[in-house]
């Protein structure tokens, strides 16, 4: 199976631990990019190196996959999109993304179906869900435009900055 693939305008590839630190840090050090998860933005570059190591370990453990989305024309990293908590018994997984401000719906419309295609055809998964902080308007618009269906809300999932975080839950069924 080839984990790296491309669409007309974008390269979708697994990260390389000793090469992608700077680009990943540049993406994940923006608070607006991780607000919907929610998570604090990175503040030192070594966090990106640690993250790349974690990504590699989780991939080898068959529990998660992260792809970097690069624009072919200039090599700019536009997003990280991945799946985690892959449940091989239930054939479902959770998608998560961190999107550069340039990664708009037009980019997602080209990239996400290609990723879902891999999840359906190569990994044989049935259900892909996405959990985002309740009230994330932009995420909701993107997800619904990509045919993810809102299924409800999960209350008080954890505490972040002194507040209980509820998740809106969306999913798409494959196959």
């Amino acid at each position, binding site marked *: 199976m080839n984990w790296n693939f491309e669409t007309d305008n974008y390269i979708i590839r697994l990260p390389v631990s000793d090469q992608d630190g700077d680009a990943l840090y540049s993406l994940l050090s923006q608070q607006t990019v991780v607000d919907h998860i929610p998570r604090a933005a990175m503040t030192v570059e070594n966090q990106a190196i640690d993250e790349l190591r974690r990504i590699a370990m989780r991939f080898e453990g068959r529990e998660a996959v992260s792809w970097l989305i690069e624009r072919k024309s200039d090599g700019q990293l536009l997003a990280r999109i991945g799946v985690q908590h892959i449940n091989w018994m*239930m054939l479902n997984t959770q998608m998560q993304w961190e999107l550069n401000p340039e990664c708009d719906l037009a980019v997602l419309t080209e990239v996400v179906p290609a990723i879902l295609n891999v999840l359906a055809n190569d990994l044989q998964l049935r*259900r892909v869900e996405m959990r985002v902080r309740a009230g994330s308007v932009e995420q909701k618009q993107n997800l619904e435009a990509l045919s993810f*269906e809102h299924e*409800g809300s999960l209350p008080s*999932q954890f505490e972040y900055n002194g507040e209980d975080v509820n998740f809106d839950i969306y*999913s798409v069924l494959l196959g």
Partner: protein
Amino acid sequence: MKFTPELEFSGGRVKPLHYDDIDALYELYQHPEIPGQRPLQDKEHLNRMVDYSVQMAATQRGMMWAIEINGEIKGMVSGFDWQPSQLRIMMRVDGLPTLTIEEREKALSVCIDFLVNKYHIRNFGYQWIEGQKEDIKTMLLKMGFDQTATLRDAWRTGEKTFANVAQYHFISSKKKPVPKRLGDGHDDDYSPGQNLNGTSVKGGE
């Protein structure tokens, strides 16, 4: 070391899993109530489950009780996917066909009360899988759970068949614990994770 307590309720009690109960647990697992689950074949698996039940409770990953009614084991209450730092857990009850909905509710309720008061858990989830008894949903609503989401095809029932899952949550109204410095707070109300046999702990022996 003891982490899972015996808890009484009117008409029965819940108690930790024990190797002496393997035959009764095996009988329980001959009547799976979750769609797609097959009767257990190998009784030896239950020895490991009893081992795990102790390890899970000790490490705050889960807690399992047998439901005993008139001296007979008629079901199990399980807490799993326990996230201690996030004060949440998923609950599940498995019962023999003879376990009444009232007994199921009382057993689940007494376990939730324990987890609220001992471990300060606030968020209790419960997943009802399409095909389970409808009266379980009524029971959950009566207990204060709310249905918050319907997860499509989230439970696999066969090679290529799936069932929807209705997800319920009960959020305890008890205040969150106030963080203290390590080593402080040896009072009875703040001792999560400690051995129930310890003499300084409420409910200890």
